[in-house]
């Protein structure tokens, strides 16, 4: 008898779940389901991102939702596993019936799912775009400049603001991203007419001395670097490179890294938004208040999460009539640019075949175990 009850209950649950899935893909009542794919476990971890997106959605829901409907975030962990990332996108679109993707932060989502997003006519607004496909797809528009636009900005800062003649680059490049970095370097050359003194896009694990010695041999005055910080600076110091300016990519801009940089070394970091280490900067007050109230870790990634959720909500509020996948996609393709003070340029989705709306970077310098925000605001590369 007990077994019969259990079976019946399971069947009822299954039916109700299926019904919920069918309803939510485009109905005019019930919650508005929004999907996101995040790295919660695995090598690329951003657990604070879905928490921050949810905090924004909770705020909107507390104020009555959008057109009386609540926002519901459905976040899936892909553990940086391609199979799980593809599966997550299929589940979110087919079973959960999400109207859009917002606040994704995965190292593999864009490349794997760009075709699916195109086929299903759904838009994605990642909080953190990582691979080149995030910036070259018709249905994806991240809220961060990403590693490529950031590399151009860092090169530009080294040559134009710091006035270094011999600029070099030592990068670890993810498989498939090499072309993106090469294009970023070309973009800098087009803008400034300058070229690199030394380039290594195959910096591997292990003792960094050999890469640093190559930089010394090339006479590098500024070096762009994007991998593990502590051994790099320890060895650079041993090699006597105190007069070289090292420019770190956004992934190295953390409180812990500031503490491992020796006091006599010159380390700058290019940030993707207003530096998160100073909560009083324009746009940061809202983010700082939100993450503080919700007990979320303060990181640059959580800034992206709040920005992605905010611009998503703003566009959703502009929709007249039913909020469905089709109406949401149309609203993003037709939208006007949004000025968001936390970023270096206005954010817009628009109708184009590829989207990389955020340009420019703010620069910070390692100073006594922390990061000091440098004057000058955002550096947005422009033609000389």
């Amino acid at each position, binding site marked *: 008898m007990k077994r019969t009850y259990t079976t019946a209950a399971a069947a009822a649950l299954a039916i109700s779940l299926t019904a919920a899935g069918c309803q939510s893909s485009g109905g005019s009542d019930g919650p508005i389901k929004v999907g996101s794919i995040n790295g919660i*476990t*695995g*090598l*690329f*971890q951003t657990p604070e991102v879905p928490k921050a997106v949810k905090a924004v959605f909770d705020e909107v829901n507390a104020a009555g939702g959008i057109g009386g409907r609540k926002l519901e975030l459905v976040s899936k962990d892909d553990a940086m596993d391609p199979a799980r990332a593809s599966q997550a996108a299929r589940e979110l679109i087919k079973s959960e019936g999400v109207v859009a993707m917002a606040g994704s932060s995965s190292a593999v989502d864009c490349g794997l799912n760009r075709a699916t997003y195109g086929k299903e006519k759904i838009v994605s607004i990642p909080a953190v775009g990582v691979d080149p496909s995030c910036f070259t797809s018709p249905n994806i528009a991240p809220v961060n400049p990403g590693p490529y636009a950031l590399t151009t900005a860092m090169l530009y800062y080294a040559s134009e603001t710091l006035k270094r003649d011999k600029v070099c680059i030592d990068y670890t490049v993810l498989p498939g991203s090499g072309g993106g970095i090469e294009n970023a370097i070309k973009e800098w050359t087009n803008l400034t007419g300058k070229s690199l003194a030394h380039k*290594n*896009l*195959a910096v*591997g*694990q*292990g*003792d*960094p*001395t*050999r*890469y*640093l*010695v*190559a930089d*010394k*041999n090339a006479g590098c005055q500024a070096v762009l670097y994007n*991998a*593990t*910080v*502590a*051994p790099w600076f*320890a*060895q650079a*110091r*041993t*090699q*006597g490179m105190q007069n070289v300016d090292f420019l770190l990519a956004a*992934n*190295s801009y*953390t409180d*812990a*890294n500031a*503490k*491992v940089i020796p006091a006599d070394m010159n380390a700058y970091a290019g940030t993707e938004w207003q530096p998160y280490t100073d909560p009083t900067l324009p746009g940061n007050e809202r983010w700082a208040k939100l993450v503080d109230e919700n007990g979320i870790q303060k990181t640059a990634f959580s800034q992206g999460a709040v920005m992605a959720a905010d611009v998503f909500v703003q566009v959703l509020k502009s929709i007249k009539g039913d909020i469905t996948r089709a109406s949401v996609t149309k609203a993003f393709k037709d939208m006007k640019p949004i000025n968001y003070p936390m970023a270096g340029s206005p954010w817009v989705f628009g109708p184009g075949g590829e989207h990389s709306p955020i340009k420019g970077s703010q620069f910070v310098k390692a100073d006594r175990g922390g990061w000091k925000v440098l004057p000058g605001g955002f550096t947005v590369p422009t033609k000389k």
Partner: protein
Amino acid sequence: MVNSVIAGLTSGGGYALLGLCVVLTYRLVAVVNFAMTAVGAMGAFVMVSLTDKGLNVWPALLIGAATAALLSGLLGAALVRWFAGHRERTKAAVTVALYVALTAIGLRLFGGNSTGAHRFPSPFADPVFTVGGVVVPQSVLVSLGFALLITLAVGLMLTRTRLGLKLQALSERPSTAEVVGIPAPRLAVGVWAGVGAITMLVIVLVAPRLGGDYATLAGLISTALAVAMVGAFRSLPLTLAGGLILGCLEGLSSSLSSIQKYQGVVPFLVILVLLWWRSRREVWDTAHSR
């Protein structure tokens, strides 16, 4: 290019030490231990987690070494208890399985390290002298000295002491050793624990130079095996030389832009070339002797 080769040489001492640990395990308990660096890294990360929490470095180092010794000893005990009569390849497979499991657990526990979350102490970073354009820090001399010490001490122990004789007997014929009264299982577990602790110390020594990521440190096993291969899993002096050669090759490969992208392949190429070279005169059905 010469400077790059010298720069590579600076990491050779660390590689030599790891290769020596592999050879030591193989010579003493006849197992190719793929889990060695993963076990050592586990101990190293236990230590770093404790120092990050404010514990003094010495007790933390001791606890970390004890953790690695315990883990390695447990692996040794399992191999002695359940796989004593099995072939070497089965025992190696057990250690491969453990390597995979430990790497997954280590990554989950300690995460990636590009954020600088874990900091390894670096007491030997001060420069000693300069060769060409390369500044050589103390840590290079410490690694080389440690490697030389292991090579000499273990060589002498194996050939000149009673314990060495017993250990050799244990490795060559474990069951016969037990019959003649050598406490083989206890001795074997002791060797495993000892190698575990030494590996942990080596990992702590090389971590500040090589990066503090768990996966990176556990993955050093491929380099260690390539180095051990140079010494044919037997010769300690050749293994020492192998570490230095591999370091130089890495330095050289990173300085040539045409092969820069493939520098990670260097250890595997060394393994392949040596396998081919060593087996060139062998014919089918020849009994392989260790």
